[in-house]
């Protein structure tokens, strides 16, 4: 049977499962789904997980200005972070700068933010991009804002852990430097994912379906988490949880 949950709720629950047993998760700007996932993981941890959301007044522990998050990451005090990309390739390189021949980009994105640094320093970087199409998931990014892998001898304690899209979850295999399909979201197929992915990746013989959020998760999400996330992302919370609560 198909349970009553929104695609966004599946994504939030899926990402939250990747944040179990961590001490400190940081969330960057413009990240309502990762932010909700971090808050869900915190709610489940009985407060053991610390969540730092940039731009939030209720959930930011920083008192040393913009640099503190980055200093904190270099000290090893942040276990997980989220990055996206206008383009993401099969080696987990991400492009936040633009499409075309830099600096004459045909399409300009906002910029690299802290990616070129945090990707090296945060052990579990979860790549998150809802749009799963060949224009986003490309064979090779046009500009490397932050590389997915580094040469041996480069100081790198962090890197890509997984890629979550609107269609599926990929794990990143650091040894093979490749993604591997982990699970397919309900309503999507392995064939469709192959077709919509511009890079090559590995695939199990029988890829499982991404687990649906259970009733307890949905209760927590639509209650406490909806309330907490609305401080930073009011329109997102109204759109998703307002709708989910009304359903």
């Amino acid at each position, binding site marked *: 049977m198909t349970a009553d949950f929104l695609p966004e709720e599946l994504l939030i629950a899926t990402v939250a499962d990747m944040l179990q047993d961590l001490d400190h998760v940081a969330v960057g*700007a*413009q990240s309502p789904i990762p932010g909700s996932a971090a808050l869900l993981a915190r709610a489940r941890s009985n407060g053991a997980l610390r969540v730092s959301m940039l*731009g939030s*007044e209720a959930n930011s522990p*920083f*008192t*040393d*200005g*913009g*640099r503190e998050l*980055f200093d904190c990451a*270099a000290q090893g005090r942040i276990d997980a972070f989220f990055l996206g990309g206008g383009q993401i390739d099969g080696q987990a390189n991400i492009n*936040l*700068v*633009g499409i075309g021949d*830099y*600096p*004459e*980009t045909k399409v*300009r*994105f*906002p*910029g*690299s*933010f*802290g*990616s*070129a*640094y*945090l*990707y*090296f*320093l945060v052990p579990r970087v979860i790549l998150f991009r809802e749009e799963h199409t060949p224009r986003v998931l490309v064979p090779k990014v046009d*500009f*490397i*804002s*932050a*590389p997915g892998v*580094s*040469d041996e*001898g*480069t*100081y790198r304690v962090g890197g890509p852990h997984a890629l979550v899209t609107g269609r599926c979850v990929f794990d990143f295999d650091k040894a093979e430097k490749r993604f591997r399909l982990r699970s397919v979201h309900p309503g999507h197929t392995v064939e469709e994912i192959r077709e919509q992915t511009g890079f090559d990746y590995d695939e199990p013989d029988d890829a499982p379906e991404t687990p649906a959020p259970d009733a307890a998760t949905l209760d927590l999400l639509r209650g406490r988490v909806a309330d907490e996330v609305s401080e930073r992302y009011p*329109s997102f919370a109204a759109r998703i949880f307002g709708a989910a609560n009304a359903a």
Partner: protein
Amino acid sequence: MGRPAVTQPFTTVEDLAARIPDGAKVALAPDYSGCSMVTVRALIARGARNLHLVGVPSVGFQGDMLIGAGCVATLESAAVTLEEYGPAPRFTAAIKAGTLRMIDGTCPAIHAGLTAAEKGIPFMPIRGIVGSDLLENRDDWTIGRDPFGDEDGPIVMVKAIRPDVTLIHAPLADRQGNVWIGVRREMMLMAHASRQTFVTAEDIYDGDLLADPRMAAGTIPGLYVSEVAEAANGAWPVGLFGQYGADEAHLRDYLKRARSDEGFAGYLDEFVFAPRAAE
């Protein structure tokens, strides 16, 4: 004994804009920090040209408006972001037209460059970045080695960033030129690193911000502050932390109008030029 009772005469927003010369390197804070939107409008009104903006570490509406108005030759920033409002229309148009020199950076490298300037040293080492195309496009970043050992591999070094002017809006300033910024301490870093710091203040604090340790910890000492102008609502329309939020309807209207050259010109007429002509 106490601090000498220096009474710093306050100036006007127009004077601040006049004292930021064409070609100056100007450090600006992101929309969630302290943005002197009122001085940005005055800079546009005075026809500022060839500015080199430094986003600490990114810029929002301030950058988009100044770029659109033709005030900016160079932008050094980790990003131009209007957050949930969408892509920055005038920035995007300027990149497309090739009229803006963009120096793409990453947040902590901008903080590191300012930290070097703050300490009066020429460069700062920083983690990460190795293998990023950002590095390939920067002649002010280089790769070196740890002089005390080699375990860490290559390490990026960024040149100090020394802005001519930091321009910010803050909740409070006192008559000694001390400026309260609370936890938004990127503005402290900016003031330390810059030759001059120009501030517009929402309110004037009646007393000495450094006299009360609870306020002093979040205060930029007047030592670093060149000029202060009182400007209530000076961060409108982006808002000021802890004081007032963004004027969302206005910002959405800006986004709509700034999609075209004509629409943006109309916006400037209405909110920058016409109010001055009426005075």
